[in-house]
Each structure stands twice: as structure tokens, then as C-alpha cells.
């Protein structure tokens, strides 16, 4: 307390606290498509964004709004960005999610040596701590400019579970998947050609249970690499499916595909220890996850 005045200047860019570590682990795992993966974290007064990228063709972002946190003290000027290993970050967070216990985790950046510091703050006498070394991120702008393809958006929303299943089923035919949007009859087709052909149709009017929303005014088709498409659903958290959520897919200029999932992060894993807290919690605190997939180069 006594030296708080002195620390004023050196206050860390961010100290935030989160109640449900499992939810955070779920959200981050959703964008973890391989073991060794570098991520960039971007801090702002609105929240934290985690970005991962691969081969210039696939990018994913996890948006953690400040409302998800029970404490969010942001003191930085500008928007600090730093890189770290996503794998280590998730492994560390997992250490905080104790079975049968709810734990409040504190995240601080930077530490004395520019680390990301994680600490459990439930009890004064027992705590788990982790430090992850950060690095200066690549200066290349990782932003995939997603722009609408025309005046009317090309977009559809499909049940996340159905999307995941469809993409899994497309594994055997081959490496390239064509996504076709057809206004009449309104439908979405996923087609793979390779060792064999497989086509999966989602008809908007026939099965509105699966295809929840649909917007398209002209026939559109683009091809995407299977492995990138699969990365968008392969680690979808089980809560997304349990809660029967939908995923929104949009096709932008040049065929850029955007896939959006919603992951709920606020539900405490064990409700009975949280009886008092449930009252004031917002019913659904959600992390947004976005994937951007570039289409395959076409010959024409």
C-alpha cells in the first residue's frame, strides 16, 4: 500500500481477472490446430484479442471482451502487442482449472521481464503461478481484410455441430473443398473432389433446423484447402455443441471465407460452489472466435 504512489508510473499495462478458466481454455483450444503454434495478443481498453495464423492462408482470432472479466484494469497507452506460444499458454491455463474447484485467475502483462503472468487469487495461502516469456511480434500486419463481396452480403448460419460433422465427412475425398451458395433454391453445398466425390447440401427451406439463416443473391463458389477448412471446426469446444449454437459463415471479396463461432465462457464448471455468484452473472458471457480462410488460387 505504502508504495502505491511510486508504482503509479510503472503500473502494468493490464491486470485482469477471470472466473472461469475452463471457458478460456475452451476458446483458445478452438484455434489450436497444431501443437507448436505462435500467437499474438493484442490488448486494448475493450478487451484482449488473440491471433494465430498459418501459411498466409488461415487466420483465427479470439475476442475476449472486457465484460468477460470480473476485473479489467487497463493502463496502457496505445495497444500493446506481444507474441507467445499458444501451446504453453493453454497448458498453463489448464493447470489453473482444477477439477471440482472454481478458481479465479489473474492475468497480468507485462511482468518485470516482459512476461505474461498468471496467478490464482482464490486464497492467500495457496496459489498457482505461471510466467510465460513473450516476444516481439512480427511487424507484418496480420490483418486479413475481410470486405463484403458486393452490396448484399453472402452469408449463412449453420448449426455448429452440423458444420463440424460435414467437414469431418469431407475428409476422405480430397484436399480441396468447394463451397457453393445458390440463391434458387436457397442452398449451401460443400463439395469435395479427389479420391472420390462427396457433396453435402444444406437446403435452407427444407431443413431450417440445420441452416438457420441464409443470404445470397447470386450463385457463388470458391474452393478452399481441406486442412484449413478443417482447422476452423476441428477443435470446436464441446460446450458449443452442447449449447446447440450456430456458426456463421460469410464469403467476402475475392472469396475470403469468414467462420464465426460463439463460445460461452462464464459458466462456472461447478455450480454449487457458486450459488451466490450466479445471481449477478450475466446469463451468457460469450467469446467470439473468427477464422479467415483464403480461397485456393483459381486458374482463370
Amino acid at each position: 500500500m505504502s508504495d502505491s504512489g511510486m508504482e503509479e508510473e510503472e503500473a502494468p499495462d493490464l491486470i485482469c481477472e477471470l472466473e472461469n478458466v475452463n471457458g478460456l481454455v475452451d476458446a483458445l483450444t478452438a484455434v489450436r490446430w497444431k501443437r507448436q503454434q505462435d500467437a499474438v495478443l493484442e490488448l486494448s481498453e475493450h478487451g484482449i484479442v488473440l491471433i494465430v495464423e498459418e501459411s498466409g492462408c488461415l487466420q483465427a482470432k479470439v475476442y475476449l471482451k472486457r465484460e468477460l472479466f470480473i476485473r479489467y484494469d487497463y493502463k496502457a497507452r496505445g495497444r500493446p502487442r506481444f507474441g507467445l506460444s499458444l501451446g504453453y499458454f493453454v497448458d498453463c491455463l489448464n493447470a489453473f482449472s482444477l477439477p471440482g474447484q472454481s478458481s479465479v485467475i489473474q492475468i497480468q502483462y507485462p511482468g518485470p521481464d516482459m512476461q505474461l503472468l498468471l496467478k490464482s487469487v482464490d486464497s492467500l495461502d495457496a496459489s498457482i503461478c505461471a510466467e510465460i516469456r513473450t516476444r516481439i511480434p512480427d511487424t507484418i500486419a496480420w490483418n486479413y481484410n475481410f470486405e463484403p463481396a458486393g452490396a448484399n452480403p453472402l452469408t449463412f448460419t449453420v448449426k455448429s455441430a452440423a458444420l463440424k460433422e460435414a467437414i469431418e465427412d469431407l475428409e476422405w475425398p480430397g484436399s480441396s473443398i468447394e463451397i457453393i451458395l445458390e440463391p434458387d433454391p436457397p442452398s449451401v453445398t460443400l463439395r469435395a473432389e479427389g479420391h472420390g466425390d462427396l457433396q453435402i447440401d444444406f437446403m435452407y427451406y427444407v431443413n431450417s433446423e440445420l441452416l438457420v439463416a441464409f443470404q445470397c443473391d447470386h450463385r457463388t463458389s470458391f474452393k478452399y484447402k481441406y486442412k484449413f477448412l478443417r482447422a476452423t471446426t476441428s477443435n470446436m469446444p464441446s460446450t458449443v455443441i452442447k449449447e446447440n449454437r450456430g456458426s456463421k459463415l460469410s464469403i467476402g471479396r475475392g472469396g475470403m471465407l469468414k467462420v464465426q463461432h460463439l463460445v460461452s465462457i462464464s459458466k462456472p464448471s461447478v455450480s454449487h460452489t457458486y450459488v451466490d455468484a450466479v445471481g449477478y452473472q450475466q446469463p451468457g458471457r460469450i467469446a467470439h472466435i473468427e477464422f479467415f480462410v483464403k480461397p485456393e488460387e483459381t486458374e482463370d
Partner: protein
Amino acid sequence: MKFKAFLTDNGVNLLEKRFLPALEKTGKSCHLYLTRDHALFLHNLLNGDGVHSVAQFRKEALFHDYRISSNNDDRIAFALDLSLLLRALRSAVAVASEYSASAATRLEIKLVKKLSPNSTQSMPFLTLETRGYKSAVIQDIPISKPLSRAQVTELQSALESAQELPPTLVQVPDLNQLLNLVDRMKQVGDVVNLFISRHGDLSVQVSTTVISLGAEFRRLVVIGEQTNAPSEDQNLSAQTRSSRSISRGDGQSVQVSVKHFAKSLQCHLARPDCAFYGIAPQGSCLTVIFQFFIPGSRETDKSISLHCRLPVLDPGSG
């Protein structure tokens, strides 16, 4: 050389449900050392590496009608495969439960020599015999040749030197929680740094150049040499407190293998009532002592004891 006894219900329960599953995690094979009064399961006492573990039972804790004789002061020791013993015991329990409707079954355990099918030489076995009203089920567990007199002496002296207590022991709050953490630590690194102070601090930490992951506990119950935590240290970080404590001489740290540390925590399968960690003098090893209470009381059950000693990778500081 003769050994024959009947396992009590409590003994079967202790071994089958608690100790053998825990000991199996320490190592598949161990020495069973039988004396006039005790039965001991010993891991790695003769070969230096690995976790030393000693589980000791007073004969009454496991057996009745316990008979042992050997020309080495009635001491017998041999190596056996714990998973085989556990399997045999489980099936004996299953058989016994089928019989038990009619009458009490007796589970006899004894040492025998038998001709094995493909050999002309007779081999030693530990035999479990479940005798029911009309039939009996016999299971032979192959064991090593009994240890020689010299080896038994060596085992006995290793055992005696393993009894020495660290000057300070701290009580670990929640083995399960720690085990969960250590499972994560295994993914980070191979070496865990452990710090224990006389005022009840315990911290465990794995670090590499990129990452460090650990837990710290304060104000734990201390047995043995203890001091009060200096008040000026209250608000310092764990790292600063431990380095100050080491330089003052009231704390000590050692490095042990994460795998060994995890194995020591697996002992919670034996359902101990308390667990204590301590560092042996000169940081020679990390000792873990498990305490068992007489059921329904807070009194130590002196007929059962379990402790482990973890080899230290680096004598550390302090």
C-alpha cells in the same frame, strides 16, 4: 524357509483397494520383505535410482495365523511383480465374494516351490489360495529367488538408513490438487524445484527458458524445527521470500525429477490421511511421509506406514 499366513478382510482391503494400486504407480516390481513382525513392500532400496518407497505393515494389519521361519533370523525377502499380485488378489476377492454367501472364506498366502510346466527345476511362487466350502482356487505368482543373507542384510541396512526424518516437515494440503498441477508441469519440463521453509512455506516450480509454472503454499502445518515467518516478508513475492529464507538459513530448496515427484503424489491412491514433505539434511533427498489414522479417529495408526525418498538432481542451496 517357510512363510504361511491368512489375509484378514482388512488386510485384503488395504492391499487391494489402496496400497497395491498406489505402489504399482511407483514401480511395477518391488521387494516384499517379511520379518517376524512386519511385512514391507520396498521399491528401489537396493539399486540407487528411482523413488525409494517403503510401505510397512505390522503383521496384524494384514494377516492372522502368521508363520514365518528362515535360518536368517526368520527374515525372507524376494522380488515380485505388483501387478500380478494385485490381479491375483482381485480375482481371489471375486471368488471369495461368490462363496461368502454360505460361509466365511479363508484367503491363505504362502511361499511354495513348484515345478513350472517347461522346466525341470522347481521355481519359487507366492501362492494365494481361496478356500470355500467345497472348492479352492489356487493362484501362483512367480517371484524371484529369495534374496541371499547378504542381500537381506543390505536391504535391512538400506531400510534403517531410510528411516531418518528430515528436520522440518510441512503438511501438504491437497494431494489431488497438487497432482493435477504436476501433470501439467510434466508438459513444461523435467525438473521441479522444491522449496520448503521452517515457517510452513512450500513451493514447487518447473521452469524453462520460456515458461515457468508452479504453486506456492503458505502457513502450512510444520512438524519439527520451525520458526515464525518474519513479518517484513509478508508482502513479498514468493521468489523473493524463498531466496531470503534460503539466505537466512530457515529454508531449503532441492531439484527433483518431475516424474518422481508425480509418483510420490500417486501415493494418494493409498488414501493417506495426511502427507508431509521434507528435505533431508544437506539436501540429500526429498522425503515424503504419509500418515494414516485409525479409522474414525485422529490418532495415527502405527501399524501402517508409508514413505518415499526422491533422489535429488541437484543438492540445491541452503
